[in-house]
């Protein structure tokens, strides 16, 4: 490990993020207790309703992460216009948010399928909400694939930023699919400006779960951001070492 890498190694573990990590574990544990033991079973859905405490917050986090990806991409493109070396921060933020968004969209799909098996008797239905969600998932997997390509970092980031903005069109389509089409999927349990579909302990458990999952997602995002930064440093160092060895060889041959 070179001196620069060593001095930056602590970047993935600051005292603040350690505290956040501990908080995330505690919040998840409390969420499990509330969701599995304190909150009652649903009259219609039975025990399967407990899946909602992970399913609903996961998609909200995914939406939020994709919003952050889009906003960061716009800021990156604006900063990039002013000076080439500016905007890397926003690009890293977009990348780390998209990764978290994809993970939580995956969790949404898995928990939804398990819930579907119990409630509908099948893991998958070609329902508008399910279909648009899997398209959203695959679209952002494509975005992540674009970010990983071996190409000039600025070109790659620029194309990824445009792709992030186009991909975001899918988010409102997924969210409003239950209103726009006749679907098997139930309407949103919680939404702004509408009376919640659930009440009492279930309502508070769902709200708390959203908070707990947000803490976990924030912790993950911060770490992914730092790992991306470290990867960039590693690449820069590798390039610098390569150039310096090439210069030494050239001097030797002269």
């Amino acid at each position: 490990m070179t001196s620069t890498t060593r001095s930056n190694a602590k970047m993935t573990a600051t005292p603040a993020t350690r505290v956040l990590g501990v908080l995330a574990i505690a919040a998840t544990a409390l969420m499990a207790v509330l969701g599995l033991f304190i909150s009652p079973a649903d009259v219609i859905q039975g025990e399967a309703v407990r899946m909602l405490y992970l399913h609903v917050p996961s998609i909200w986090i995914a939406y939020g992460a994709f919003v952050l990806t889009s906003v960061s991409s716009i800021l990156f493109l604006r900063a990039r216009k002013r000076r080439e070396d500016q905007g890397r921060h926003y690009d890293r933020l977009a990348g780390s948010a998209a990764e978290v968004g994809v993970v939580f969209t995956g969790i949404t799909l898995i928990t939804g399928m398990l819930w579907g098996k119990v409630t509908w008797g099948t893991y998958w239905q070609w329902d508008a909400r399910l279909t648009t969600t899997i398209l959203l998932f695959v679209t952002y997997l494509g975005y992540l694939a674009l970010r990983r390509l071996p190409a000039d970092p600025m070109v790659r980031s620029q194309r990824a930023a445009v792709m992030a903005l186009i991909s975001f069109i899918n988010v409102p389509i997924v969210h409003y699919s239950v209103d726009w089409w006749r679907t098997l999927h139930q309407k949103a349990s919680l939404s702004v400006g509408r009376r919640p579909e659930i009440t009492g302990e279930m309502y508070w458990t769902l709200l708390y779960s959203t908070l707990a999952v947000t803490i976990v997602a924030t912790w993950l995002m911060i770490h992914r951001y730092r790992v991306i930064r470290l990867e960039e440093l590693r690449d820069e160092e590798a390039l610098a070492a390569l150039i310096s060895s090439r210069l030494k060889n050239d001097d030797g041959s002269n």
Partner: protein
Amino acid sequence: MLAETLLVARKDLRVEWRAKVALGQVAPLALLILVVLAFALDANSSLLELGAGGLYWVAVLYGGTLLIQRSFDVETDDGNMDAFRMSAIGAPSLFLGKSLALFVQIGLLELVLGSGIALLYNVRVTDWVLLFVAAVAGTVAFSVCGVLWGVMSAGLRVRATLLPLLLVPVLAPILLAGSRAFETALGVRADAGWTWASLMFVIAAIHTAIGLGAFGFLLEEG
């Protein structure tokens, strides 16, 4: 702008006419896909008649992706992207010109595939106008989406695998809308065929607007 658009489209079509990849390789391959899909459904004629609309658009998706890939391969292999950047032709004209050329190529592919399903799947058209409008709408949408996402993967080393990954989720709604509209036109489904055809025009309009705005940006340093 119109002259520039036509110039770019003519250039692409001339390259294609000389190479004859679309008609010589892609169209026969897409026809082969129709045959293989029939095998997958156990050559059940009633199933094929029911699913003809969807199977047609799957074959278009496959062949269209190859044509889109090729449309940018000919540019990057010979360093034409640099020539585009250096030329006085505006990015919107480039976008529209390449879309127009792809529209012609995918349209020809669809004519071949249309004849294919008529012969192989034994379908009967009940609404020719809807069939034509849906085919045009789908082709426009395929073309503009193809150019927008094609330039995104142009010049990258793994573009052969990247382009389908980026493109297929975007083309999936077109595939769905095209299938539903065709099913109505073929009398298999009493559905809102015109609504589905309109949806394809909306998708095409959104991607055209994005393409006109972002194409120049995506061409930079590709």
